[in-house]
Structures are given as C-alpha cells and as structure tokens.
C-alpha cells in the first residue's frame, strides 16, 4: 500500500502552481493520473521516485517511510524499489539492448530475468542492437523491460506512449498490462489520453491545477462525450 500526502510549489509556464497530492494506492492497483499538461503530473511521479523533493508531506510504501518532512526522512532514489519509464525512453546509448537490461541487475542477482524480459517484450532478436538503431516502439519496450529487471514493487510510467502512433500504443499497452499482472506490480501511469485511461485502469485520479479533482472508475467520471467524438473521428 502506498500512502502519499505531498505538497510542493512549482514554477510552471502558467505561473506558480501549488501541487497538493493526497491519496492511498492499494497493492496491485493500476492507477492512472489524468489531466491537462501543466497540471503537475510528472512532478508527482518524480517525487514518488525521489528525483524531486516535496516541500512538505509524507510518502510511505508498505509501512516503510520513503519521505517524511517532519522526521527529516528522504530516501535516495537508489533505495526506493521502483521501476520508472520516462517519456523519452532514457536508454543508455553506449549499451546494447541486452546491456541496458544487464546494467539494471542488482549485485548478486541472477541474470536469468534478463532473458525472461527480453522474451516477454519480444526483443530477443534485437538484443545486440544499440538504441540508436531502434524504432520508438522498440525503444519503449526496452525501457519497460529495463524498469522491471530489479523486480520492483511499484512501476511508474510517465506518459510512456505519447510519442508513438496509435497502433504501437495499443500494442505497448498490452505489454504493460501483461507486465503488471505477471510481476504483481502496483502501477501508476500518467496519461492524457482518455482511451488509454479507460483501457488501462479501473481507477483514475483527475488532476487539475495541482489538485486531485476526481477519483474513481474512469467510465464513471471521465468526460465521455469527448471520448465518443474521439472514437467517431477514428472510425471515420
């Protein structure tokens, strides 16, 4: 279970944003964070990962405190067992696909997981290629596989598919769902794509101006009128 109650002031393009994020995420849940750009979605993921420090608040995962302002606890990102997939892939250009995965191994961890992940994401044939020779979808599969090597409890996805075309998105969504089930992950995914939110999650947090405005089943609380227009557009 992840308990998050964080606060941070951010300087965004639209001026000062007071980010306030207070929620509880259960073990094994797949939660999406939906909202317009500039709402503070990425900052939330970065604060959970330990890449950005909240001004105030508390984060704990399975009773272990990761961040607590008043107790002066702030676990380094290295010590928070998370997997994270960035929008821009962030693969190491000097390493091949397989080396990117091997790099993520912990000391003493068996490398059999690397082959399992290469198979799961159908990257076996590309294992010897450097990232520069891969397509966007292939790169994102490597990023996903790499994030899972340490068998994290929590998977954070920061709009991982927004740079891909629709067909590729749909395929990668399936990979992510398979990984979520197979590795028994608690997954938090940022998205500004209504269809994606509907397909991926049973719970969505709608973020506006730095605050959670709605929290619940996507099919109940999302503006589905928009969605129908979108679907019509695709069908035409």
């Amino acid at each position, binding site marked *: 279970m992840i308990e998050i109650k964080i606060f941070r002031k951010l300087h965004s393009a639209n001026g000062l944003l007071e980010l306030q994020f207070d929620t509880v995420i259960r073990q094994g849940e797949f939660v999406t964070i939906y909202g317009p750009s500039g709402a503070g979605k990425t900052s939330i993921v970065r604060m959970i*990962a*330990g*890449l950005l420090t909240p001004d105030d608040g508390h984060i704990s995962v399975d009773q272990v405190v990761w961040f607590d302002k008043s107790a002066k606890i702030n676990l*380094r*990102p*290295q*010590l*928070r*067992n*998370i*997997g*994270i997939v*960035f929008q*821009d892939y*962030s693969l*190491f*250009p*000097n390493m091949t696909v397989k080396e990117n995965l091997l*790099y*993520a191994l*912990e000391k003493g961890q068996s490398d059999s997981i690397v082959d399992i992940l290469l198979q799961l994401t159908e990257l076996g044939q590309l294992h010897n290629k450097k990232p*520069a*020779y*891969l*397509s*966007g979808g292939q790169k994102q599969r490597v990023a996903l596989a*790499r994030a899972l*090597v*340490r068998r994290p409890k929590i998977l954070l996805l920061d709009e991982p598919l927004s740079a891909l075309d629709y067909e590729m998105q749909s395929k990668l969504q399936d990979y992510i769902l398979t990984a979520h089930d197979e590795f028994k992950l608690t997954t938090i995914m940022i998205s500004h794509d209504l269809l994606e939110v509907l397909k991926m999650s049973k719970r969505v947090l709608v973020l506006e101006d730095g605050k959670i405005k709605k929290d619940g089943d996507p099919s109940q609380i999302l503006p589905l009128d928009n969605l129908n227009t979108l679907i019509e557009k695709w069908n035409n």
Partner: protein
Amino acid sequence: MLDFEPFYLTLKLAFATTAVLFIVGVPLSYWLAFSQSRFKVILHAFISLPLVLPPTVLGFYLLLAFSPESIIGRFLESLFDVRLVFSFTGLVIASVIYSLPFMIQPIHSGFLSVPKNLIEASYTLGKSKITTIARVLLPNMRNSLFTGCILSFAHTIGEFGVVLMVGGNIPGETRVISVAIYGEVEAMNYHNANVYAAILLGFSFLVLVLVYALNHNIFNPSPGST
C-alpha cells in the same frame, strides 16, 4: 648534428602532464558541472586564468612559490627533499596548472551534454553516483575526454613562457623543444631552429585535425534518426 633530447623531454613532459591532468580533471569537471555551490564560479574563473594571462605572469608567481626561500618551496624541500625550480618535477606541476583549462573545459561541457534523464534513469535503477559516472556518463562523453587529453597534450608541447620562467634551459632536465628553438635562434643556428619549428608546426596541425575529426564524429558516424 641535431639534438633529439628536447623532443624526448617534451614528449615526456606532455605525457606526464596529460596523465596528471586527466586524473585531476575528471572529478574537478564533474564538481564544476553538478555542484550547487556558489563557490564554483570563483574556482572556475581561477582555473581559467591561464587562458587570459601572459604565461610569464603565471611563470613568475610559480617561480616565487617554488623557490627555496618561499614557504611552499621550503616546506617541500625540508619534507620531501624536492626542489621545484629548474627541475622536471617543477615543470610538470607548472604545466598542469597552465594547461588545466584545456582539460577542464571540454570535459565540463561533456558532463553537461549528457542528458540529465540518463543520470536519473541510472539512479532509479539503484546505481550509485560513482557507477553512474563510470558506466553512463564517461562512456557517453568519450569525445570530450579525448579532446581534453589531446588539447592538454598539444598545449603542453607548445608552451614556452612558463617553462622558461620555472624551468630555465637545462639540457636533459628542462630544455624542451620550444626553449631549444629559442636557444638555436639566439645562437644563429637557423637550420636547427627551422627543423625543430617545422616538426612542431606539423605536429600541432595534425593534433588539431584529430580534434576536429573527433568533434565532427568522423570515426563514429551515428545512424540516421528513426
């Protein structure tokens, strides 16, 4: 008969200087690139002084600092029995200070050129700062490292003012090629001066070709973007 000792001495000095500079330059550049301290501006300016000062100014102060009458000179002589004026060791130290900006500048920009996301990705994979530097940062800025080494090496070969001030003109100890050229001209041996000078000119040109070849990625063409 042409004396090749100045060549040998020059290369020895350049190798020693580059090796020391590389060891000092990588951590120093990392600190300059990523530290939040305001003090780094002052240190960066101090390191870059040799770019703007006449070498004689630097040489003059080093001469004062190294002399057995100064505190530093006395300390070194009494403790380690090392005398830095008019000695090869003194030349190496002077060259390191003089060529420091040529090592720091490219490596500093190299560190800044690696996308910050790669560093963060490495941290979230549980890797320490040291591992991240060794396996992610340095391998992805190899050209900057080469450029720093080549420029420092070439700059050391070309130095004159500092060497003359600190080292003088002792054959086999401090008489490097630039000093030798000056000596030959003073002795009206224009032929020898010409040979020394031509070799230095050709060498310097080759070094610069190599640096620009590296910067234009001639050796390692990257694939087209996908």
